[in-house]
């Protein structure tokens, strides 16, 4: 079938949450997101209510996909870091372990240097966690909630 599934469990999710919460504080950032390369939002911290996170996730993933395509043409390794500077908001985008994307949005209350430093540290921790998640997802004994659903369940979804 298709590419491997991404699965998120409570234990790892809590670890990821702790890392993004900490990153918001340590880097003095406004918002921090983690997104998978297909544009699904995994976690968010900071003032994320004011932002359309679903849109941001899909556009960031598209952006990373496009620059990855450019890198391929140039026979370059994927560009792992991107930085865009605006008048009020800046955005730092970091590819983590070639699987997920760490996005930090910050203003002039902090500095790019500090953001970079904290992102680097967070990236190391995140790498380990996603490594474990990947292993879990590939474990053939892992139960999926969908093993038990029936055709009726699926049909019912559309009966409205």
């Amino acid at each position, binding site marked *: *079938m*298709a*590419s*491997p*599934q*991404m*699965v*998120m*469990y*409570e234990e790892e*999710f809590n670890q990821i949450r702790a890392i993004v919460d900490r990153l918001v504080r340590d880097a003095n950032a406004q918002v921090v997101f983690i997104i*998978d*390369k*297909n*544009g*699904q939002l995994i976690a968010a911290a900071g003032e994320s209510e004011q932002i*359309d996170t*679903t*849109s941001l996730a*899909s*556009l960031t993933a*598209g952006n990373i*996909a*496009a620059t*990855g*395509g450019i890198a391929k043409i140039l026979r370059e390794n994927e560009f792992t870091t991107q930085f865009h500077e605006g008048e009020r908001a800046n955005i730092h985008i970091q590819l983590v372990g070639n699987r997920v994307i760490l996005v930090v949005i910050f203003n002039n209350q902090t500095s790019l240097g500090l953001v970079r430093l904290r992102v680097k540290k967070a990236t190391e921790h995140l790498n380990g966690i996603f490594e474990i998640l990947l292993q879990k*997802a*590939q474990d*053939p004994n*892992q139960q*999926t*909630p*969908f*093993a*038990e*659903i029936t*055709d009726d*369940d*699926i*049909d019912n*979804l*559309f009966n*409205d």
Partner: protein
Amino acid sequence: MSFINYLSREINCKIVYYGPGLCGKTTNLQYIYNKTNPEAKGKMISLATDTDRTLFFDFLPLALGEIRGFKTRFHLYTVPGQVFYDASRKLILKGVDGVVFVADSQIARAEANQESLENLRTNLAEQQLDLDEVPYVIQYNKRDMPSIMSVEELRAMLNPTRVPDFEAVAVNGDGVFDTLKAVAKLVLTELKRGTPK
């Protein structure tokens, strides 16, 4: 690549609308967007040229309801159909869980349909996916136009394996939700069948 979140009890799937330029992919998403309750949809994003041709993708997040306590969320994408945007099409196809091929029923577009379908197969193969194994439906769009092929002719040309297919007039919405439901159903059925590999 579906994403199952046990914490928020959500399942996310990616569906891609593929097909030749101007066949009506963006129109499908626009109709779905306009007819869906605000609670069930997010913002629709269209990265388009000045002339409303898709440049990179359209994106529409939809919530379809719950199955066994899991919220099902579908991310709908369209590709740019124009031939020279092939590199972008490959990117959008990454991690796809289900495909809708939108064909343009007009006689003049017969060759464009065939080329696009061939291109879909090739681009899926590049990421080790076989079109015959991916949840996949076909829509024969623009049934309202004057010079069109019959459904039998379109079927013979584009659907030899007889996947679910639908006639549509996407501008009026005819067939749009039937197509979406069919592919969503196939995707969920596949999830049920296939434990993660």
